[in-house]
């Protein structure tokens, strides 16, 4: 009886009904198609497909070849942007790696060599010491020494060069937009939806167009990295500027600041600590892009990882991957130290410039000295090749050993998951007839967020179907779905535990922090080695990447439950189990939903990886478009992923909003 009553509640009826119909249709769609001979049931009819991909390709071609803004053509415009980026990039690259020379090819004459590897390490160590203390300095020093000793120096410097360009440009761009939207409510209103969109659109939605506009090479990679890394900086700087106390601004006005002085002498310095948090984010996101960017022409460590993955060269992949990790850790800690830095040492006014900056002088002298000596002693100039160590064979051997001895165990795990979880879910999603799929998504969105959301979801789904991508989209949904499910099953309990126990929290927190510092692709290396290519490997890599928000938000939600609620629960005699289920978890629902939302977004943004391990989803579609430089196809596939992300984001945000209102939170 209770069960019946439970089910016949209208809300539950709706969802159960929707699920049931979908399940039935999914199970019998194939038989239905056979019985009726109606192939359109399972596949969107070819003749109705929109020729959108070709149109976009044509349009892009026109844009690049013929478009003109009167004064200059579009091509001149992209060339101009290219040159802005390319020129400083070449300078940095030359000073880090190749040295400066004039002339071409054979006739090239070296004018000046690159900075010595020792000098670069010295500079970084000095920066770390300046930002914090000797401990950080030695960490940073060791990290970069590692790169030299393990033969990753040159690739690492290529990566560093692109970071050194992408980060300042990203920060400057983000700050500029932040300032504009701080100054003008109109700009803010215009920017907000774009930023929202950027956060939900996975990177490779714009990889192909960028590739097409700027060509294969470092410029494309830098542009993509900047676009990817800039949005948080815009947000951080807008918010930081908006939270400058009104009185401080008034104090500036009363001192007689001009608008320019207000910005540079009052607003930016006061918000510096927060801005530095934004800078740290830009750095981390840029590092995150290292491998993806190498698909469109960034060299360096990312490229090494990518080629190793393609060749299934275990050792090489691990080495380059570790190098990225090491670099990410060093740069992360360094930039965080700068963000937290407080000038506690009293400024020594009155001393001469040299005396006031002993560090700068020492480091400058070391760099110049090494540079001069390096002209004579090559091993000071570049790390001697004979002295490099390689762990490549070690990793390869270890993997071999693991595979020989534990093959059965890994295989059993994989088979278990595939048979009992992944394949059934895949069948379910792939089986859904597209017509019903569109209807079901619209209904769900309508139920959660009103008719507008329903209509939007319906149109987006229709767009995907009518471009012939329904099947791949469903595989995408299935892969992300399974990954998010598993990430939640692991992450939420972990977060709940951490939220209730300080000691667990420190351990879990450290673990999650490390996971987040690692660039996304790095997870893929060991996973592929253990489980080889396929859906299962893709799933594990995505889970590892997307785990963090599930844990974080759960812990946060539990911790934020008002203490009065907990006391009320205690007074009513709740056991700790009841407390969790009846009070803490319901109160934490909005937070859990936000975590779920973030988990889904991260999972979708890892999709291009899945293409590398041979899944047949939208990630693969983008990947194919990339290799064939087919803009139209790439844009459509990218948009489709973006649409899936947007639908998921809006539905879950609406649910979070509703549950917040139900709980009387704001």
């Amino acid at each position, binding site marked *: 009886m209770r069960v019946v009553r439970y089910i016949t509640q209208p809300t539950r009826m709706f969802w159960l009904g929707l699920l049931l119909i979908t399940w039935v249709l999914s199970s019998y769609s194939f038989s239905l198609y056979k019985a009726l001979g109606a192939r359109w049931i399972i596949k969107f009819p070819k003749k109705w497909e929109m020729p959108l991909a070709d149109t976009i390709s044509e349009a892009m071609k026109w844009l690049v070849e013929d478009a003109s803004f009167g004064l200059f053509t579009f091509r001149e415009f992209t060339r101009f942007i290219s040159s802005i980026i390319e020129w400083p990039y070449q300078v940095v690259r030359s000073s880090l790696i190749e040295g400066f020379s004039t002339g071409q090819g054979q006739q090239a004459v070296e004018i000046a060599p690159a900075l010595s590897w020792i000098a670069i390490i010295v500079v970084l160590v000095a920066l770390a010491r300046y930002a914090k203390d000797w401990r950080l300095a030695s960490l940073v020093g060791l990290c970069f020494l590692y790169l030299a000793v393990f033969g990753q120096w040159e690739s690492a410097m290529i990566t560093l060069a692109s970071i050194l360009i992408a980060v300042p440009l990203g920060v400057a761009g983000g700050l500029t937009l932040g300032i504009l939207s701080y100054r003008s409510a109109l700009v803010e209103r215009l920017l907000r939806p774009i930023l929202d969109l950027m956060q939900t659109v996975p990177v490779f939605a714009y990889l192909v167009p960028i590739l097409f506009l700027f060509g294969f090479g470092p410029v494309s990679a830098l542009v993509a990295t900047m676009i990817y890394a800039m949005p948080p900086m815009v947000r951080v700087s807008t918010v930081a500027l908006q939270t400058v*106390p009104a*009185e*401080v601004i*008034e*104090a*500036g*006005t*009363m*001192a*007689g*600041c*001009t608008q320019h*002085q207000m910005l540079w*002498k*009052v607003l930016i*310095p*006061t918000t*510096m600590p927060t801005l530095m948090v934004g800078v740290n984010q830009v750095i981390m996101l840029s590092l995150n892009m290292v491998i993806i960017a190498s698909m469109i022409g960034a060299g360096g460590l990312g490229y090494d990882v990518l080629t190793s993955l393609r060749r299934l060269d275990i050792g090489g992949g691990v080495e380059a991957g570790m190098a990225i990790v090491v670099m990410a850790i060093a740069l992360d800690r360094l930039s965080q130290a700068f963000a937290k830095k*407080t*000038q506690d040492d*009293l*400024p020594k*006014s009155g001393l001469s410039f040299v005396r006031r900056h002993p560090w700068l002088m020492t480091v400058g002298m070391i760099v110049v000295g090494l540079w001069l000596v390096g002209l004579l002693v090559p091993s000071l100039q570049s790390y001697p090749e004979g002295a490099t160590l390689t762990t490549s064979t070690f990793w390869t051997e270890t993997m071999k050993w693991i595979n020989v001895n534990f093959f059965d165990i890994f295989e059993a795990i994989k088979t278990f998951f595939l048979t009992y979880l992944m394949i059934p879910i895949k069948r379910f999603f792939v089986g859904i007839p597209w017509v019903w799929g569109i209807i079901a998504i619209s209904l769900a969105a309508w139920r959660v967020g009103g008719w507008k959301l329903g209509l939007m979801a319906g149109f987006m789904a229709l767009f995907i179907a009518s471009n012939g991508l329904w099947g791949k989209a469903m595989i995408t949904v299935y892969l992300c779905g399974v990954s998010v499910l598993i990430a939640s099953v692991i992450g939420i309990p972990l977060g709940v535990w951490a939220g209730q126990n300080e000691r667990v929290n420190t351990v879990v927190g450290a673990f999650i922090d490390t996971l987040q510092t690692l660039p996304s692709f790095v997870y893929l290396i060991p996973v592929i080695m253990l489980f080889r290519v396929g859906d299962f490997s893709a799933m594990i890599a995505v889970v590892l990447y997307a785990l963090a928000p599930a844990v974080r938000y759960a812990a946060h939600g539990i911790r934020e439950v008002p203490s009065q609620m907990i006391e009320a629960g205690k007074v009513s005699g709740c056991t700790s189990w009841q407390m969790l289920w009846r009070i803490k978890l319901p109160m934490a629902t909005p937070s859990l939903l936000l975590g779920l939302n973030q988990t889904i977004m991260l999972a979708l943004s890892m999709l291009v990886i899945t293409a590398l391990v041979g899944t047949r989803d939208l990630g693969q579609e983008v990947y194919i478009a990339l290799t064939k430089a087919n803009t139209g196809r790439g844009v459509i596939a990218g948009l489709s992923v973006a649409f899936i992300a947007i639908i998921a984001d809006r539905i879950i945000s609406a649910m979070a909003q509703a549950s917040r209102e139900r709980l009387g939170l704001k």
Partner: protein
Amino acid sequence: MQRPVKLDCRGVWKVYGPNPAEFMQAYDGAPSDSDLTHAGMIGAVRDANVQIRDGEIFVIMGLSGSGKSTLVRCLSRLIDATAGQINFEDNDLLAMSEKELIDLRRTKMGMVFQQFALLPHLTVLQNTAFPLDVQGVDRKTREVRAREMVELVGLQGREDYFPRQLSGGQQQRVGIARSLVTEPDLWFLDEPFSALDPLIRREMQDEFLRLQALLHKTIVFITHDFDEAIRLADRIAVMKDGRIVQTATPEELILNPADEYVEEFTRHIPRAKVMRLISVMTKGVPEGDYAGDLDGDLSVETAVDQIEAADKPFRVLDEAGKPVGTINAQTVIDVLIGRRLT
């Protein structure tokens, strides 16, 4: 003998809400309080008139939300008044261009803020020198000037500290030094001591009076603390719901409160400190025996022991030294216990 008016503000309104200017026009520039409520507008300042005279300490007093900060920000044109007229040294403040305003603020106005509003990245010295820095004064000169100011507010030896290394009282001293470094004529202080604890607050008030005795600025001082207002003010304007309900000397406020609201404030004030003999004496000097003569400007508090000890009344002298009234122990007791004087 009244001093010239430095800042003249007439019929100033500040209305928040959609289209305030249109709203004001619709009501001929004088909406009533219920007009405002009906239209859903916030009348932060309503028809304010104040004349601030050269060299006086003018205190604006009122409860939280009564519109003091808004009014003072209109006076310094940190915000633009919705309606009204403000003249500064006979120049129309509201008609000034951005450039003229910047110039005016750089040379003639200084302001101290409730939350200190120091720049966290600058040291005490740099904060103090900041207004000179934005004027483009060279570093040597401005540091010399700033050092003087730092000394003036008693912070010597802490020039190289950052704001976060200072206590609240010390931070506000920096705020004061910064606002004075350009030697402004007109000095605004928006609840400068409200964020400090009572002991420090008193100390800072003494400090403030000491500075004013040295500098003779024209001062607009905001507070919600009536004791503070009494202690510091030459004249007080009491605000309520955006309107100025009374402008008077502290003594007049206590003697003749304009309404119950003002009276409520004055109720717990130690009257003996505020009242001068000349305002509480019995007028007229009948022939008779007197214990002696007292200066009419003395506060009741300072004279109380003398008056009480004598068994005869005293004569009270006006500024010219002419006897104009008498005072006895009974009057003093009335003042002390706050019995209504008529």
